[in-house]
C-alpha cells in the first residue's frame, strides 16, 4: 500500500470517527485508536497522537453548530473543565503507583454499568423539587431546544457531578482514553441534564482536555504529520455532518448509540489489559 492509498483509507475511517464522535460527545478517539492500531497496524503511540488531533478537530468542528443551536451549556462546560484539569494533575501524580491493569478492569465494569444506566428511561425536564443552590449561584441552569420549543432545565447535584469529573479526569489521564464517556455520564447521570446538553457540552470540553495533553505528545514526537493529515481532513467534515444529524435526531436513538459505543469501549479495555497491550 502506498502513501496515497493509505491516506485515502485513513481519511475515510476518520470521517466515520468524526461523525460518531460528534454525535455521541465522545470525540473521535474511541473509534480511531482501535482502527489505526488493529486494521492499519500502526504503532499505538502514533495512533494516540493522531487520535488527539481528531478529538480537537471533532470538538472545534462541531462546537459552533451546537452553540448556535443552543444545546451547549457554556457555563457548565467551563465550570467542569476545572474538575478535569485538577483530575488530570492527580492522574499524573498517581501514574507511578497505580496498577493500570486492575484499573482498566474496574473501569470497564463501570462503563458497562453506565451503558445500562444510560438506557434507563427518565424524564429530561423534571419537576423542580431538589433545586441545587450552587447551580443557581454559578448560573448553570439553561434551556434546551426541543421539537416543542425551548424548555428550561436545572442542574442537580453540582458537587457530585464535579467530583465525578475529577475522578474521570484522573482516570482518563491515567489510561489515555475515555474522557468524553465520563464527561457525558457525569452530566447525564449525576447532574440530570438533558442528554443532548450533556453530549454537546462534553463535545465542547474535550477539545480543552485534549489540548492539555497535546503539548506533551508533540514534544515526545507522537504527532506525525503524514498520518495526522488525513485524520484531520477526515474528522472535520465528519464532525460537521454529525453535528447536523444530532440537531434533528431522537434522543432515544442517541442514547442507544452512546451505550453501544461504551460497551465496545469496555470490551476493548478488558481485551487490552488481558492481552497486556497499552
Amino acid at each position, binding site marked *: 500500500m502506498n502513501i496515497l492509498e493509505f491516506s485515502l483509507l485513513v481519511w475515510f475511517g476518520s470521517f466515520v470517527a468524526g461523525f460518531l464522535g460528534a454525535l455521541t460527545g465522545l470525540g473521535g478517539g474511541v473509534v480511531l485508536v482501535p482502527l489505526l492500531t488493529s486494521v492499519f497496524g500502526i504503532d499505538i503511540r502514533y495512533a494516540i497522537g493522531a487520535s488527539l488531533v481528531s478529538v480537537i478537530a471533532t470538538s472545534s468542528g462541531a462546537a459552533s453548530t451546537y452553540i448556535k443551536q443552543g444545546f451547549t451549556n457554556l457555563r457548565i462546560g467551563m465550570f467542569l473543565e476545572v474538575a478535569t484539569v485538577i483530575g488530570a494533575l492527580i492522574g499524573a501524580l498517581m501514574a507511578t503507583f497505580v496498577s493500570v491493569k486492575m484499573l482498566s478492569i474496574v473501569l470497564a465494569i463501570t462503563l458497562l454499568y453506565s451503558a445500562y444506566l444510560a438506557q434507563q428511561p427518565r424524564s429530561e425536564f423534571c419537576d423542580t423539587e431538589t433545586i441545587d443552590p450552587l447551580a443557581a449561584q454559578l448560573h448553570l441552569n439553561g434551556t434546551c431546544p426541543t421539537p416543542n420549543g425551548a424548555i428550561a432545565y436545572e442542574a442537580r447535584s453540582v458537587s457530585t457531578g464535579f467530583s465525578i469529573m475529577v475522578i474521570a479526569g484522573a482516570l482518563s489521564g491515567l489510561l489515555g482514553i475515555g474522557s468524553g464517556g465520563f464527561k457525558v455520564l457525569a452530566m447525564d447521570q449525576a447532574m440530570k441534564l438533558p442528554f443532548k446538553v450533556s453530549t454537546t457540552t462534553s463535545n465542547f470540553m474535550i477539545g*480543552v482536555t485534549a489540548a492539555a495533553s497535546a503539548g506533551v505528545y508533540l514534544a*515526545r514526537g507522537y504527532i506525525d*504529520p*503524514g498520518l495526522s493529515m488525513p485524520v484531520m481532513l477526515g474528522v472535520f467534515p465528519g464532525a460537521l455532518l454529525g453535528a447536523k444529524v444530532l440537531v434533528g435526531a431522537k434522543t432515544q436513538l442517541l442514547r442507544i448509540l452512546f451505550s453501544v459505543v461504551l460497551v465496545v469501549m469496555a470490551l476493548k479495555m478488558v481485551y487490552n489489559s488481558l492481552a497486556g497491550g497499552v
Partner: protein
Amino acid sequence: MYQDADPRISSIEPQPIVPSHEAQLERSISTLLQCGVWLSSLIVLIGGVLYLMRHGSESVDYRVFRGEPAMYRSLPGIITSMLTGHRRGIIQFGLVVLIATPILRVLLCFIAFLRWRDFTYLTITALVLSGLIYSFVGAYF
C-alpha cells in the same frame, strides 16, 4: 470554595446575568472555534497536497515507532522547517493552529469575564488556563 466566594462578591457588586453578554460570548466563541478549525484544515490541506505529490507513491511505514524528528516537535522547529520548504512542516504547522484553537478559546473567555467583572468565572477560567500553561511548560522543560 466558590460557595464562600460568591455571596461576598455579589454584596459589593450585584452580578445579574446579562443576556447580551451571554449571547455575545456565545457568538465570539463560536466564531473563534470555526475560524481556527477552518484555517487549520486549509493549512493541512495545502501541506497535504504538496506532501502527497512528492511522497504519494512511497510505501507506508508506521509499524515501528521512531518518534518525529526534533524539528517537528516544537513550535520554533516547525516554523523553521516550514520556512525552509518542508512539506510535512506545513502540515505540522496546521496541526499547531488546531491545538491552539481551544487554548485561545479559554483565553477569550478569561478576557470576557475580566471585562464583565464576573469574578467567579474569572477564577474558573484562570484555573483552567493555568492548568493548560502548566502542561505545556511541563512538556518542554
